[in-house]
């Protein structure tokens, strides 16, 4: 039976009804009512009645309204399922990737979009086990202007462009110039990005890094003795100016040391105990000094947690964190915690 456009109720003799309608002993009549959907039939309502009577006028109105609402609800639910499936497929391309296991280098990453209902945003990161002439791997972490889905679509474009430029990863400046050219060609001055390129390779138990920042917060190096170093690696942001400059810095990580890449959603989290303060670079470094020797997963999570808890229930920007560590040799003890932390309590476990 066609359910759309709506058709009047059809009455069947009980013996005409298919078996699945139910073996109602003594069913007097069976009514089939189409459930109108969004331009397509949404289904049918089958009512079995003991007596052979047809509907009264009131019943007819009730059944028609019920069919209208039920059909509409089913059609909306079906639409929702379809759209969710489409979103899922499109989203898969934009979701942050899992960090691969690499030989001699440990990676960890965390990502948290700004909106509570969102899964993607304007921050992104990618990990390429093989880049450039093949000796190094590459991590990219970046932040495009804007938030939400529109920003996420732009990150998708930038990530694809960078993937195509991977063979040039030995020369960060060249890679950035080409990306700059692509974004300038869009002719939309609001589409710009800041990012960090981190090429790295294992060198015995150590990890050698080349870091370039294009208008992005400087990478931080966590040394085993608790020192936290800022890597200057300054450069212009991408997608605004014709000519860009960049500086690539080399850093060597000893076993147990970590390079931290992050987006400004971490340091610009606003909140804290008083509600309106910036989390800030200084607070981040102070916290990191107490985290020397932490495994990368724990560290990435700690950084994201500190910023998120700082922001509390208030709004925050997208947050992305990637850690690149030289693994500690098996069985080697972590360094003693540098200095006792000041007294504090709360938050770690409930009574």
């Amino acid at each position: 039976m066609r359910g759309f456009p709506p058709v009047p109720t059809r009455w069947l003799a009980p013996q005409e009804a298919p078996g699945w309608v139910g073996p109602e002993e003594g069913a007097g009549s069976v009514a089939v009512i189409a459930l109108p959907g969004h331009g397509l039939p949404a289904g049918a309502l089958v009512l079995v009645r003991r007596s052979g009577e047809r509907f009264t006028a009131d019943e007819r109105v009730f059944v028609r309204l019920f069919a209208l609402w039920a059909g509409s609800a089913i059609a909306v639910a079906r639409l929702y399922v379809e759209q969710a499936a489409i979103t899922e497929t499109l989203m898969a391309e934009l979701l942050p990737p899992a960090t691969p296991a690499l030989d001699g280098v440990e990676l960890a990453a965390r990502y948290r979009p700004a909106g509570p209902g969102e899964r993607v945003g304007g921050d992104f990161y990618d990990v390429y086990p093989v880049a450039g002439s093949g000796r190094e791997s590459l991590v990219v972490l970046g932040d495009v202007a804007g938030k939400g889905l529109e920003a996420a679509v732009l990150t998708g474009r930038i990530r694809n462009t960078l993937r195509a430029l991977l063979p040039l990863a030995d020369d960060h400046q060249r890679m950035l110039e080409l990306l700059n050219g692509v974004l300038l060609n869009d002719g939309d001055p609001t589409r710009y990005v800041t990012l960090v390129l981190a090429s790295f390779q294992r060198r015995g138990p150590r990890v050698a890094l080349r870091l370039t920042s294009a208008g992005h917060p400087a990478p931080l190096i966590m040394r085993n003795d608790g020192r936290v170093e800022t890597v200057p690696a300054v450069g212009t942001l991408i997608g605004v100016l014709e000519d860009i400059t960049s500086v690539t810095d080399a850093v060597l990580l000893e076993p147990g040391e970590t390079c931290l890449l992050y987006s400004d959603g971490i340091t610009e989290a606003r909140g804290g105990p008083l509600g309106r303060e910036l989390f800030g670079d200084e607070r981040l470094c102070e916290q990191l000094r107490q985290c020397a020797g932490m495994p990368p997963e724990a560290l990435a999570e700690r950084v994201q947690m500190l910023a998120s808890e700082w922001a509390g229930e208030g709004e925050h920007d997208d947050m992305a964190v990637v850690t690149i560590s030289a693994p500690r040799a098996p069985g080697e003890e972590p360094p003693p915690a540098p200095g006792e932390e000041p007294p504090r309590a709360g938050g770690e476990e409930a009574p």
Partner: protein
Amino acid sequence: MSGGVEERVEALWAAATAGDERAATRVATDALDAGLPMETLLLDVVAAVQSRVGHEWAANRLSVAQEHTATAVNERVLAALAHHPTRQNDPAPGMGRIVVACIDGEWHAFPARLLAEVLRARGWHVDYLGAQVPTPHLVAHLHLTNPDAVALSSSLAIRLPAAHTAISACQAAGTPVVAGGAAFGPDGRYARLLGADAWAPDARTAADLLAAGPLPRQATSGEEPRQLADREYTDLTRSAGSLVGAVMDDLTRRVPAMAGYTEQQLERTAEDVAYLVDFLRAALYVHDPELFSAFVGWMTSVLTARGVPESAVLAALDALAGRLTGFPRALGTLARARTTLG
């Protein structure tokens, strides 16, 4: 076999606190290879070590960094166990689907992760959504997967208002909720108050409960929902930041020692005051002063372990009370907590 449990706890503890993921994973896989059942390993070894991590941190025998390191290593152990050959990875035929998630804002994912692994080991199809799941995500997931039940975990009582939202949203989507974690009170009283369909004190009980058949629904009882957020709760939530600032001003005047505090010590103190306000709000939300008293008792023990005298907590409670005239329920809650201290 069970004779090995204590030694394995010690070995895992040593590996986890040393941040040695490989050694920790070896302890766990060796135990399985030796025939220890997965559930025993999860609950009597891994969970036992994790709860010790929390206690040792509270007693100031582990630093925050060590606590996080150990927790991260334990998480990695759980991840590694998922790939052990004895582990059945496909859901058993006839078993249903359970969603396991933490309340929005809740960072302590370990208990939920543990439950997810226990349920998987028992043959359920488990969707583990992880820490701090925004409620809209959770509900969207329920609509798409239509699970038999959702298990919601929360460790900190300050998440109870968010838990209330999540529980009612899941039930509105037609999925019954089992709540678990320290936030819901030692006897699960807040789980009942917030209308959860069931409560479990630990992962084993939760798994037994789910195995016993469909959860009895609480939500269908046609009663008017209870309004928990009253004026005091709402006002306190709105003004929490400025209240903490005012209390800090009062404290600097009242506690002479604070004149010598470093900036960081002052900030830690402000964070502690903010926790007091958060737990006070939670106590107002669930209408139970005992929630706040228990937190104050725990906080005092954590602070005294770090050389902060009990009098500092009393001073903070008094400063709060001084700023909360016109909040009779809050004042009663503060007074009650004060009497439980020395």
